[in-house]
């Protein structure tokens, strides 16, 4: 399919020494992600999905279920233990984990964007908000100061941060504003794929709603494909067309979000949906 942007197969991320029993003794049916034989943590195992252009895929699950581990490997923050991911871009197929470090860095800087729950991970608090966005533009070889200023200002305005705050340090911003700056930074290179990891967690409800609206607007305007990680069913309901449900490092259910919400198959998902009603 020409509309596919990402294809993930057999993706695993295991922390620790690993033994032959790690996989068979962890997962939802064992109610743990830690191997009782060697103590390794199977943070994510055998994750499979496809993502299409402009689509928002949700990953939901309780804390520790492996959601962040999954997106971190895809954003090259961490190397996977096993599995493959193919990124379809500009008529080419890229075997992501076979790329060398420089190629991965370039893909991450130019073609992906990431928004973390903790703005300290996504922003440099030593420099101005505009400088943070400039960094990404400079990484993608834009070396024209005037153009960098204009683009950074436009991005901030688009994410509803006043242009006048561009030269201020994001340290002084509210939590919601910091997330907006992160989103502006992630969008700087107009990437076709965005990762959002618990971007509204910990924010006031009204601020959450405004940021979720912004994310939807961006998807409509730019057709950016997104993987949205959250433990909040409300976020999934609002944003994601399709959803993966994770528990103890495994995907236990996947499909159209509406179907999962109306007719959850797995007992865990049923409880999750029931508790959110």
């Amino acid at each position, binding site marked *: 399919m020409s509309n596919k942007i990402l294809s993930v197969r057999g993706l695993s991320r295991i922390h620790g020494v690993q033994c032959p029993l790690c996989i068979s003794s962890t997962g939802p049916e064992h109610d743990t992600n830690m191997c009782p034989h060697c103590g390794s943590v199977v943070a994510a195992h055998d994750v499979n999905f496809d993502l299409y252009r402009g689509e928002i895929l949700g990953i939901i699950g309780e804390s520790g279920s492996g959601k962040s581990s999954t997106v971190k490997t895809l954003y090259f923050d961490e190397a996977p233990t096993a599995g493959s991911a193919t990124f379809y871009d500009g008529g080419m197929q890229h075997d992501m984990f076979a790329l060398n470090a*420089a190629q991965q860095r370039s893909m991450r800087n130019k073609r992906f964007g990431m928004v973390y729950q903790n703005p300290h991970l996504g922003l440099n608090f030593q420099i101005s908000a505009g*400088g943070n966005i400039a960094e990404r533009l*400079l990484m993608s070889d834009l*070396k024209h100061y005037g153009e960098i200023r204009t683009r950074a200002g436009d991005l901030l305005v688009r994410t509803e941060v006043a242009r006048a705050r561009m030269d201020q340090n994001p340290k002084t911003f509210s939590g919601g504003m910091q997330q907006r700056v992160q989103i502006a930074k992630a969008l700087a290179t107009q990437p076709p794929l965005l990762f959002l990891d618990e971007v509204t967690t910990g924010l006031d409800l009204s601020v959450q709603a405004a940021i979720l609206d912004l994310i939807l607007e961006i998807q409509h305007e730019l057709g950016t494909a997104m993987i949205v990680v959250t433990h909040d069913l409300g976020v999934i309901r609002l944003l994601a067309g399709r959803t993966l449900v994770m528990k103890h490092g495994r995907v236990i259910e996947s499909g159209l979000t509406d179907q999962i919400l109306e007719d959850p198959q797995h007992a865990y998902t049923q409880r999750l949906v029931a508790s959110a009603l």
Partner: protein
Amino acid sequence: MNAHYELPLEDAGYSFGFLDEYAKKEVRRCILKAISIPGYQTPYASREMPMGRGFGTGGLQLTLSLIGADDTLKVIDQGSDDSVNAVNLRQFVQLTCPGVEVTEKTQKATLIQSRHRIPEKMLTEQQILVLQVPYPDALVVVEPSEARRKVMHGEADYSRLLVKLYEDVVRFDEITISHRYPTRLNGHYVIDPSPIPRWDVPRLHQSPALVLLGAGREKKIYAVPPYTVAEPLVFDDIAFRVEDFRDANGKRIACRCCGSTVSFLDELIDDAGNVTHQCSDSSYCEEQQETISARKQA
């Protein structure tokens, strides 16, 4: 260094150039590697020298490894041949390298060791310039981990240095770096060109002379080989500017000794608070003065 100090040549049997032949060979191998990969910080086994690190031991080891009995050496510190540091280093070479001539005239030297300046006079293919370097890595201002800096250099990832320049322009409307201006060689490695002023940076570009940079404490050697492309990091729309020696009326200030209006000037303030300017390169200044007095006599 004590000017009256003499090395116990007979007892210890110091070899020509103080360093033993193995040490010199190792430095020369590193020099060759540094020349082969312009701007790459080549690690070397920096030796203990009979003077404190930070007094040019990195440059001195390069000089001692390169120098032969038929060489003519010039040593300068901030443009001056007469500063204590320059005198000490020169005496040390004279003491340990019998037969080597020393000079203050830039054009007479085959080897020039310098701290903080490149001579005003254009160097030639026959000359080597050795620069003393306190901090060899231009990335140290943005990345404390050397392991990560190495990866950044390997991938030519200098975006964070450029962000620093960006922040500079945002805050001060111009790039405020006065010394150690990050300079890119052949489109790849960015070097710290040692604490030379911006004035000297364009002279690294396509220099006919080999420029070697040595950091003794940090144990690194790197090179700007002859005719290398050396470009200061800038934005497309903000040009690199050298120091501007103009008075309040926009007139180029002249050296108070030789009257030159084309040299890098040091600012001097006397006890009465009067500000005057003088060539930083003392050899250049003297030669200008000689030319003027010769013209007057003729």
